[in-house]
């Protein structure tokens, strides 16, 4: 085992000593478990760590300080929309009336939350141009699954069981093909055209009676609006297939383009992207799904309903037989949805349009400024993000996108998404979002400029970057070859503390 790094502290397990901690809950009466057969009981208590509250606090405070985050700096992680997370939204989700409500509380006790969910569905339907929305999916990927399962149910309801294929552009996010598989479909990959859009001819060729659905990310993962979208959608509908829009990039187009009105049958929203609910170090998010007329009957249950008297209720168990059923327990990641609701109300319609305008403006500004420094493969206006590439730099200096990314860390920035989309060599997918000031964007450009200079003058500096981070580049091979996925020596006080 290696020693902890200079700036990494000990693990919880190394901080543990028998007898530390405690004092949180009262002790049970003796014999509280006596009525339970011994065979059902655990022989020994769990060897959880024993740490005092002061140590616990330092542990997490200091761990938090090892993280880069939106609240500490610029985080232009393409496709992820790392925008500012308003603090009122955190406050709202913690209000006791929301936080202490049991998910099976009778509707009469849950009118506040039900109203909020219902209104949020209406707002998302308006933004997406959709007929209705379900808030249940826990993330974008689960939204995709929900949507694709609905298309499956739709085709089955019409007896079209031979539709076994889903078309996915090769620039798509990995969740799209993975979703198609989970929903029992075969993924047909569609190449991109030179302009970054879907290759419309290849697309037409792949479409047919076996096509259940096409999944289109729009704007695409290259940050481009599918300029020939009208044609694509017409072709899809002509063969009786359905069009799914991956709405992860909705931050670019609110108020300018409504997928439902344009002809998409189903889409998902990423509230942790577009609606700024925080990313939580990997989650939670929520992935509401909007549907048009055709898929209405198949929405997962239970839906939130408004009664004629203005009261709200959940659909009863089994009330709608056409539903694809449940996609999770209870009704959704409600705490996340409260945040999204607050965000939408704070902006209102006009504010959301401004969000998209400013997000697109910032991306185009950054693209314009970086054009002379890095390759920018698609030279037309981008949406909220754009792809750059270090291909030329690599050819000239041997410096790869990975090195550029790691060096950006030394300059105080979170690197963009790298090596995605897979269709662009040495890709950097850069998404500034609308909440970054022009000063910040300019300082990012300066950093890239310096790095490109360094690539020529001192390439070793980049190969060995980062230099100013809590740890340096990691041995990922060792991690995968001899996976160490849990602390083994959970023996409390016996474990020596490395400090």
């Amino acid at each position, binding site marked *: 085992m290696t020693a902890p790094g200079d700036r990494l502290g000990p693990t919880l397990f190394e901080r543990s000593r028998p007898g530390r901690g405690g004092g949180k809950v009262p002790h049970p009466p003796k014999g509280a478990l006596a009525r339970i057969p011994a065979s059902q009981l655990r022989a020994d208590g769990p060897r959880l760590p024993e740490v005092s509250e002061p140590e616990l606090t330092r542990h997490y405070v200091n761990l938090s300080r090892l993280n880069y985050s939106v609240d500490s700096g610029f985080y232009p992680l393409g496709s992820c929309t790392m925008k500012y997370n308003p603090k009122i939204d955190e406050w709202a989700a913690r209000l006791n*009336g929301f936080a202490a409500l049991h998910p099976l509380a009778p509707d009469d006790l849950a009118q506040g939350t039900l109203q909020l969910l219902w209104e949020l569905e209406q707002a998302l339907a308006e933004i997406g141009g959709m007929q209705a929305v379900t808030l249940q999916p826990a993330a974008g990927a689960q939204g995709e699954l929900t949507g694709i399962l609905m298309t499956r149910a739709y085709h089955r309801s019409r007896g079209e069981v031979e539709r076994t294929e889903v078309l996915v552009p090769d620039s798509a996010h990995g*969740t799209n093909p993975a979703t198609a598989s989970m929903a029992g479909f075969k993924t047909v990959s569609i190449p991109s055209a030179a302009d970054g859009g879907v290759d419309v001819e290849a697309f037409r060729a792949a479409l047919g009676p076996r096509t259940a659905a096409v999944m289109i990310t729009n704007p695409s993962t290259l940050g481009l609006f599918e300029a020939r979208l009208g044609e694509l959608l017409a072709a899809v509908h002509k063969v009786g297939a359905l069009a799914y829009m991956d709405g992860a990039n909705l931050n670019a187009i609110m108020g300018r383009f409504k997928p439902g009105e344009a002809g998409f049958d189903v889409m998902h929203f990423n509230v942790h992207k577009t609606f700024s609910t925080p990313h939580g*170090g990997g989650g939670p998010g929520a992935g509401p799904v909007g549907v048009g007329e055709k898929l209405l009957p198949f929405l997962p249950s239970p839906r939130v309903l408004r009664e004629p008297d203005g009261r709200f209720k959940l659909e009863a168990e089994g009330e709608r037989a056409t539903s694809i059923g449940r996609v999770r327990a209870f009704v959704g990641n409600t705490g996340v949805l409260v945040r999204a609701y607050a965000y939408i109300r704070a902006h209102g319609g006009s504010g959301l349009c401004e969000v998209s305008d400013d997000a697109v403006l910032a991306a185009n500004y950054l693209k314009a400024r970086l054009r002379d420094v890095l390759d920018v493969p698609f030279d037309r206006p981008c949406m909220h993000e754009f792809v750059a590439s270090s291909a030329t730099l690599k050819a000239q200096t041997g410096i790869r996108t990975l090195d550029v990314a790691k060096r950006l860390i030394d300059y105080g920035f979170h690197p963009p998404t790298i090596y995605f989309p897979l269709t662009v060599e040495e890709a950097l997918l850069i998404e500034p979002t609308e909440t970054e000031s022009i000063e910040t964007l300019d300082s990012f450009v300066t950093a890239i400029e310096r790095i490109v200079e360094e690539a020529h003058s001192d390439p070793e500096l980049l190969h060995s970057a980062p230099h100013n981070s809590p740890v340096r580049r990691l041995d990922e091979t060792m991690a995968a070859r001899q996976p160490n996925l849990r602390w083994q020596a959970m023996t409390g006080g016996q474990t020596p503390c490395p400090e």
Partner: protein
Amino acid sequence: MPYGPHTPEDRARMLEVIGVDAVDDLFADIPQSLRTSGLGLPPPESEAELSAHLLKLAAANRVDLVSFLGAGAYSHFVPAVVDQLLLRSEFYTAYTPYQPEISQGTLQTIYEYQSLLAELTGLDVVSASHYDGATATAEGALMACRATRRERVLVSRGVHPHYRQTLCTYFGGASLVADEIPLLADGTAAGTTAAGTTDLAALERMLADVDRPIAGVVVANPSFFGLLEPMAEIGRLAHAAGALFVAVVEPVSLAVLATPGDYEADIAAGEGQPLGMPLAYGGPYLGILACREALVRQIPGRLVGMTADVDGRRAFVMTLRAREQDIRREKASSNICTNQALCALAAAMYLAAIGPHGLRDVAALGAARATELELALAAAGAPRLHPGPYLNEFAVRVPGAPEVHRRLLEHGVLAGLPLARVIPDDPSFADALLVCATETTTSEDIAAFATALAALVAEPQVGVR
């Protein structure tokens, strides 16, 4: 825009650098025919107005009743330190730790979460988190199918109905089969305490069908009805038939109950909400998913491992990523991308704050309160529905349960869950309430419930309908 930094001059400057006249020009790629303009939503709201509105909505929920409602989501005391540390925005405003050099905070906390849950479940591999208990259970069942290359699982009717329905949705998509294992009815099990638990004889019969080999057997302990299942026996039956054994568990109970590791389950799934998450009307919660080491390449979702950096210093990193959608695409073990990392962090913080003795106390105190509740309800006219051992949740029989439940609300008591609401198809639950106690339940709460119930039961109209 309330959170934007751009002044009109900034926008002008940007447009100039881009070389266009107006923001509109940047949207030229959107075909005219597909454009819309504007959104039919209300105008922006100042934060002062918004907060007043949110306070009003929150107040429109009723969270002041004395509650005995569990059924998969439990009210526990959460030490104040947990929420305050969760508010460290370096945790909640970061994303998936793609750049490990500047994400050691998140990575180490996930590694620690995995370790803590490994210890609780007795299994070695724990995913960084899944969506919730239901989806974790469905993914556990899918893992069994992948690992055994079989297409059918058996799910006990003692598993939470929402989990069964979710599993069904997932299996329908994947063209896999999920059949239900019945529960022992009262009569069948006469003389034993097994009524309400999984019917072992039926399970054996189903496992014996050679034409339809079974990939996995999915059983919950405690069951949805709060009962303790014969897990060791079920595991043996499953394994004898070449099937994997998927245990659905409740994590607080694992402080005192035998673990999936103890009874040799291959996979464990469960809902992590009781480990420090608020009820929050159903989410965000925490899908726990764990398995034996041999199944590590089947597990969906992220895994964090310990490694070293180029200087040999300990560090943590996402590993075995070849299972995941961003690398494997249509061949990935699942499509999960964004998970419930912050909830996993909350769980780790909760466990570290409460400690091993504290967690046992939470479980045992809940059990003690539940004993008290059982006696009080029985005395008030609502005896238990099943006789067997339970931890802190159980069903009681009371005529006209749904109506009694409704009437009790008026007395400020949320009397658990009328089982007919979630299992409308089974008449044996028509008169049943599922009730639970935790360490937050007080004797006064129990007395209030029992008193109000006794009064109602005594009323001739109620229960007749």
